[in-house]
């Protein structure tokens, strides 16, 4: 394959979920430097839930939003710094501020069926001259055909790249293939991206399927650092891309070293497939619910897997962390 795949690193954004948003500026500086030196194209750095995400609902960041973005910008020589913006959580004012601090890419994220709430924010990103991306979360929750309709809306607002986002790590290979293929065949000019979670152990495999179908951008993180069982791990993805002769700009050894010597020692809870993160993928629940469900299960003496099953039944979408305690309380009541 001759096309060069753009790698969007999410260690410092999705990875925030896995560390309850507690990266220090020192850690952000170190990680940004090694990622930049490894050759990734974009480094996304914000609270796990994006701009304005620091809250009781999602957890407060250790550092301020300004310090997180500024530190990433200051320590990156080649890679662009990106931010995530979820309308309803962050605002256009947050975006303008991030852009002034040096962020050049914005990913405007909505639930897979609600693209029309992203219009103002995508237009604002374009107007600021930013690399503007539409990010359709929980893509497994709607059919490939419906997802395409939502992607077309984002394209009509001006998004230059549209992502299939497997927030729950619930898509299997055929599901990814069909969605990316439809996007590539039907979007007019927008590029296509894919964001994986490894809950079913398919993070790298699904990313490769997306590339086979023509995806232009792929998300990854050091040692998979991200919500749930993590994202596609950068070093593993690079190794597989090398073997398949897929073009990219990332150095394998550097990412291997950074994953083992820098990233893994920073982890508070190992980012891995275990009974809970596997359950996220199995039931199709938003990956960042993991730590919240685990804590609620302990507090109310119920099996966290039952909490996740119930949340899936209720069709909770990304960002509804406040439903978890209520579900745990109800399950505890039923037990008595």
């Amino acid at each position, binding site marked *: 394959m001759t096309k060069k795949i753009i790698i969007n690193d999410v260690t410092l954004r999705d990875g925030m979920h896995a560390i309850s948003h507690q990266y220090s500026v020192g850690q952000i500086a170190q990680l940004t430097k090694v990622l930049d030196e490894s050759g990734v194209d974009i480094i996304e750095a914000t609270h796990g839930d994006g701009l304005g995400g620091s809250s009781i609902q999602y957890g407060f960041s250790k550092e301020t939003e300004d310090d997180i973005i500024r530190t990433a910008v200051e320590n990156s020589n080649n890679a662009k710094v990106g931010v995530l913006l979820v309308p309803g959580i962050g605002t256009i004012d947050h975006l303008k501020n991030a852009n002034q601090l040096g962020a050049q890419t914005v990913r405007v994220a909505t639930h897979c069926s609600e693209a029309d709430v992203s219009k*103002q924010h995508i237009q604002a990103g374009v107007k600021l001259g930013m690399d503007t991306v539409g990010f359709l979360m929980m893509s497994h929750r709607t059919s490939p055909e419906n997802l395409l309709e939502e992607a077309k809306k984002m394209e009509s607002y001006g998004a230059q790249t549209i992502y299939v986002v497997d927030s729950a790590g619930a898509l299997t290979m055929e599901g990814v293939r069909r969605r990316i293929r439809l996007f590539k065949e039907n979007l007019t000019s927008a590029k296509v991206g894919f964001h994986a979670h490894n809950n079913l152990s398919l993070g790298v495999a699904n990313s490769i399927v997306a590339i086979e179908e023509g995806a232009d951008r792929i998300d990854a993180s050091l040692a998979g650092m991200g919500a749930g069982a993590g994202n596609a791990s950068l070093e593993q993805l690079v190794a597989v891309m090398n073997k398949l002769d897929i073009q990219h700009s990332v150095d394998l050894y550097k990412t291997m070293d950074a994953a083992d010597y820098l990233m893994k020692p920073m982890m508070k809870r190992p980012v891995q497939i275990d009974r809970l993160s596997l359950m996220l993928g199995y039931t199709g629940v938003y990956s960042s619910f993991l730590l919240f469900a685990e804590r609620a299960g302990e507090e109310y003496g119920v099996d966290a897997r039952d909490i996740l099953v119930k949340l899936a039944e209720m069709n909770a979408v990304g960002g509804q962390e406040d439903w978890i305690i*209520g579900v745990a309380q109800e399950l505890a009541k039923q037990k008595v």
Partner: protein
Amino acid sequence: MVEKIKCTIVGSGNIGTDLMYKLLRSEVLEPAIMVGIDPASSGLALAKKQGLKIIDNGVEGLAEFKNDSAIIFEATSANAHIKNAPIFKEWGKKVVDLTPAAVGPFLIPAVNLELLESANVDNVNMVTCGGQATVPIVRAISNVIPVEYAEIVSSVSGKSAGPGTRQNIDEFTETTAHALREIGRAKQSKTIIILNPADPPILMRNTVYVKISEYSEKIYSEIGESLNNMVEILQSYVPGYRLKSQPVMKKNLITIQIEVEGMGDFLPKYAGNLDIITAAAVKTAEMMAQQMSMEEC
């Protein structure tokens, strides 16, 4: 029998239509005119069926009939109301604004209905649906103990959020957060809104997190009592308003979950977010009407 005060509804979308059904039940108000901009809108058709005068070319068309009503409800968008507000003022109308424009002061009936007693208030703003549901809760707590920070998460069904809400989501979060400080008396605030597309649709759910300046068993029990009183006041005009579970009080953090079931006037019962703001608007306008009748005596 006292004659009912005539009202105009500007906007024929979800909010305007729901409002009409509530006004039809009022003992002091009468919906007389509905203004839209789309002759084919289903809201205008329903209004016609109920015997309202229909104007389909916007506020421009209303000018001719400006003397046919005393109270105007604005149920369009923030931008539209910013343009319309000076016109309504010139006409000398009382205005209840259901957009997040916030041209006039915030009014939440459960908290500051007495604002209307001030002679120079002729335009009041209904904040947002999330604000009507959550600001009184924060105020119930700040009546007991200073509130350092209030954060609310509003989940509404995708089906109940019309294009106006979807295209102005920043205005929703900013206006609500502002009202949490100004009317809820929180020192700092944050608002999050989530659209959930689940089918069958979810009832409107709100989670209110409040950080208080100090805590003790005594303060907890006073807060509990204050919350119960406030919920009773809200239920007097929004019957489907209820606490989803007992408030959780841990150290300085109070967490309250609220559910709002609508009355099913226009959209089905899941759209409690519609009901709470239209019910608040009717309650406000009824108070305005009572004052008008008193002035006449």
